[in-house]
């Protein structure tokens, strides 16, 4: 059932298109022709239909993100029918008794209306919010999978950058939405955001004044956030997302190495009908899971928070999880980072965590493909993915960065942790201040160890077969476990990878014995290359395999470079 699309150049792709003829005699066929004659869509559609997608569960994570976003868009339209983006104060007279008669903003009142007086409103509200959380979770793990498999390498660097921007905008979009209902928690969030903006050196208070149309809270912020949330950011998200998907189409999807899978082909199912059916089915599964969660579990019970009023704050005021890392950083930064200089107050204790961190982190992520390419000097295209263990240093970097993020995220729950675990919040905070430095280092080291030992284990398996569990007793009474040889397909997966050696040190000085600028740069690169590749495990070469096999005569062995390949022969193994 699998199809191999082997064309890579644009010209080849077009050549395929030409062969397509539609027009069956049916009515549908006639309609298709009618449309095609007026739009010329058949060519494109046929091109799309023949696109081939490889199957692997981790390739679906991006789809979870895509579907969650679509679900957010659809449910969001429903909410916008009733939501009133206004800070105008009115008394509440809806059906939620504990708030009847309370003066509140129209935004809050209309959100209560959606929750209690619009049929199905609460369910849709909860789907919208759970889908937003799922969207951000899916983006995060999708990003991890792209990183850990090296899918960001040439030619996909641009798509990686687009992805990074998408991921950053997604959390901003989420924050804007979370701030709209004007309940106690979201108001506290806006209040905090206003503080963050003010912490921007020199211009902070002016920016805040402009955004809020005066002093906090004012009447302007909610309608403005509304425009951002339903118009500006969705438009940008959809635009970037379309570019993202188009680039996936243009590059074709990557695949894990395997027999018959090369850098020049894609092995998988054609978009029509198989993949579309699967993807369509998957949309309904994602929707179903989100609807189920939303029907069973409350999210953001705004009626319990009460209307926003600048004086009260509730214990356990937290942003949604995707903003958690910034909140966590804010909670960890020590107060002494605020100081006065040149007659200004510099609130670095706030600015670094709440404002600077987000763009810094995403910039670091965005430029990583170029950093790695510089270190490896690798200018080739990569359409085959790395198994994470086969790029130990990259995997370790990815996990270390992720652990840094996770520590910050957990730090945002320091108060909840303190009360649930009966600890002192001061101790918890200090512990996190330590962990944020220590954990990434440990995670880096441990991950690299694990990758290397997994690679060694793979080698063992290739050379000596897998443990069969059968204990054999020899005539002399010795016991040993019989090892079964791997079949070629399994073996191929374990040997088909590259393990580049670190660059060698060039002579440190030029001909005259003077250290040149270029040499210095080269040395720096060698140092990095060593950091990446010094400890490494090489794939089993055919020669090694032959040596390990006493019955290996029938293996056809191609000349081994560092890159091992095993050719198929006719004997079933």
């Amino acid at each position, binding site marked *: 059932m699998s199809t191999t699309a082997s064309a890579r150049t644009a010209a080849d792709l077009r050549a395929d298109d030409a062969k397509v003829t539609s027009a069956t005699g049916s009515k549908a066929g006639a309609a298709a022709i009618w449309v095609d004659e007026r739009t010329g869509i058949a060519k494109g559609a046929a091109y799309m239909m023949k696109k081939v997608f490889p199957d692997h*569960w981790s390739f679906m994570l991006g789809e979870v993100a895509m579907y969650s976003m679509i679900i957010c868009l659809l449910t969001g339209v429903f909410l916008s029918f009733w939501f009133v983006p206004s800070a105008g104060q009115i008394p509440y007279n809806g059906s939620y008794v504990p708030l009847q008669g309370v003066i509140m903003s129209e935004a809050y009142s209309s959100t209560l209306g959606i929750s209690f007086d619009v049929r199905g409103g609460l369910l849709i509200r909860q789907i919208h919010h759970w889908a937003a959380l799922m969207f951000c979770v899916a983006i995060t793990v999708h990003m991890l999978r792209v990183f850990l498999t090296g899918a960001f390498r040439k030619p996909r660097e641009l798509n990686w950058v687009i992805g990074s921007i998408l991921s950053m905008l997604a959390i901003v979009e989420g924050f804007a939405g979370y701030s709209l209902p004007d309940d*106690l928690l979201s108001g506290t969030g806006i209040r905090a955001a206003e503080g963050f903006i003010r912490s921007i050196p020199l211009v902070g208070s002016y920016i805040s004044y402009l955004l809020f149309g005066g002093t906090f809270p004012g009447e302007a912020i909610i309608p403005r956030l509304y425009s951002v949330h339903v118009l500006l950011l969705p438009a940008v998200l959809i635009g970037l997302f379309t570019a993202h998907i188009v680039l996936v189409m243009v590059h074709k999807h990557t695949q894990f190495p395997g027999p018959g899978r090369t850098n020049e082909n894609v092995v998988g199912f054609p978009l029509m009908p198989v993949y579309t059916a699967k993807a369509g089915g998957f949309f309904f599964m994602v929707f179903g899971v989100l609807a189920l969660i939303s029907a069973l579990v409350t999210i953001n019970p705004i009626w319990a928070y009460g209307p926003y009023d600048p004086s009260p704050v509730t214990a356990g005021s937290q942003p949604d999880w995707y903003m958690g890392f910034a909140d966590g950083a804010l909670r960890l930064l020590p107060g002494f980072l605020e100081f006065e200089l040149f007659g200004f107050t510099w609130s670095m204790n706030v600015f670094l965590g709440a404002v600077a961190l987000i763009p810094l982190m995403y910039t670091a992520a965005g430029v990583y493909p170029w950093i790695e390419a510089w270190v490896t000097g690798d200018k080739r295209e990569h359409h085959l993915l790395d198994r994470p263990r086969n790029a130990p240093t990259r995997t370790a970097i990815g996990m270390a960065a992720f652990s840094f993020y996770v520590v910050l995220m957990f730090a945002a729950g320091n108060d909840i942790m303190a009360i649930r675990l009966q600890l002192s919040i001061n101790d918890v905070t200090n512990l996190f201040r330590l962990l944020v430095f220590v954990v990434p280092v440990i995670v880096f080291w441990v991950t690299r160890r694990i990758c290397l030992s997994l690679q060694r284990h793979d080698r063992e398996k290739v050379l000596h077969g897998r443990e069969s569990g059968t204990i054999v007793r020899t005539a002399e009474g010795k016991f040993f476990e019989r090892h079964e040889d791997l079949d070629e397909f399994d073996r191929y997966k374990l040997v088909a990878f590259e393990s580049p050696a670190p660059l060698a040190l060039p002579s440190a000085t030029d001909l005259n014995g003077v250290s040149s600028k270029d040499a210095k740069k080269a040395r720096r690169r060698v140092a990095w290359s060593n950091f990446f590749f010094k400890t490494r495990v090489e794939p089993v070469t055919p020669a090694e395999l032959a040596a390990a096999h006493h019955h290996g005569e029938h293996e056809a062995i191609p000349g081994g470079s560092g890159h091992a390949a095993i050719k198929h022969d006719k004997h079933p193994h």
Partner: protein
Amino acid sequence: MNALAARRRHPAAIAILLFLGLALVGTAYSLLAPKSAQAAVSTADDVALGKQLFLANCATCHGLNAEGTKSGPTLMGVGAASVDFQMGTGRMPLAGPNVQAPRIDKVKYTEEEIAAIAAYVASLAPGPAIPEGKETTGEGGNVALGGEIYRVNCAMCHNFAGSGGALTRGKYAPSLYGVEGKYIYEAMLTGPQSMPVFNDTNLTPEAKASVIAYLKMTQSEPNVGGMNLGNLGPVSEGMFIWIFGLLLMIACAFWLGQKAA
């Protein structure tokens, strides 16, 4: 008048004046001060029994005359309400040193014993009495008003839904779920530990009743949105989506991947 004027410098005059002044202040105080417990219920027997119980159970920490020691504060003037709250919620007698006396639901003392000790403590110095009447049940309270009072005065420590919250250095504001109206009232009246006192000029008895009514109402209403995940706010929601949401999605993706085309 003349006679009075003549005796103005009489040595006894100063004593009489002093006496009159004290009597006046005293009457005014007894009129204005919070009613104390022994007025209504307690008898001399109660106080005697209370003293006995106090010596046996509390004196090690609070001193033989409730004057306080290194291991416990003085109870002079804390009033019967404070004793009733502390013992009725199982906080006292304290089992051992701790950052904060924990609530213990299994109370080891009978109501009579608690009343006796409360009477004894109240007999030492005037303090807030055990509140009675409909205010403590929240009857007649205005729920919406109570909600507003709650959010302004209590939510920053006890969380929006009364789920509790962390304070500094291991102290915490406990959950308010299932706390009896009387103890909510007493907590406001006596301000245990890090909690501020909300006396009757701060929050009138009607306001207190409204807070109680609000808490009772929100705690007894059904969870309209489904499970509430402990009403802890976005942290538990985030945990939920990372663990269950992601797991379910990956399970679906995996299952679909296993399906032959």
